[in-house]
């Protein structure tokens, strides 16, 4: 699946997007955050306050307990500040 990052999540990870292939044990958005956090200091820094991170699956907001199965694109970003 494709992972995309925005705002300070993007800055901390150091990339805008990437293809990822988590193992089958990674079932939810929360699992994916934990799995990504273990990939390096930049990911750990980006997700250090996991509760503050918002996620979207295929461009729809989801909670961390949402299953990722079947999703083509997952996005991680801070709380929105538009408007």
């Amino acid at each position: 699946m494709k992972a995309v990052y925005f705002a300070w999540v993007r800055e901390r990870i150091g990339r805008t997007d990437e293809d990822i292939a988590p193992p089958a044990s990674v079932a939810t958005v929360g699992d994916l955050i934990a799995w990504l956090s273990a990939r390096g200091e930049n990911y750990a820094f980006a997700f250090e306050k996991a509760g503050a991170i918002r996620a979207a699956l295929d461009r729809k907001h989801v909670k961390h307990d949402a299953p990722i199965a079947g999703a083509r694109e997952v996005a991680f970003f801070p709380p929105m500040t538009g408007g």
Partner: protein
Amino acid sequence: MARVRVQAAPFDVAAETRALTGGRTDIGAVVTFVGLCRDEGGTLAALELEHYPGMAEDEIRRVADEAQARWPLMGLTAIHRHGPIAPGEEIVLVIACSAHRAAAFAAAEFLMDFLKTRAPFWKKERRRDGRDGDWVDAREEDETVLARWSSRP
């Protein structure tokens, strides 16, 4: 069907209003909201508005559709800019038209309240002195004001 756009270019409030009201005689109330880039401390060169292409339009449209389901609207426009925006410049536009004012006011405020917390946009400060600016923090108040819409019609 609401008019929803995400764009870098400035918008023309008068032209957008005419696009909704021109040639019609059934609209009695037009409520317009314009959000501007503020510079409280005199230190801001610009706000850099990042967005999630595709999802930004989708989310605004979802909120707009919900506003149209809740109130008898005769026109609804929402435009959100991205990219660098200087202090005093316009960031967001909402126009709601209805026969009477109550629906137009409510729909415009509803759309802004939900757009603030659901549309994927993020503001980063570009400072005048060239130092690295901060990402604007989300206001807790923006979440708490949403509660009132669960009790209203």
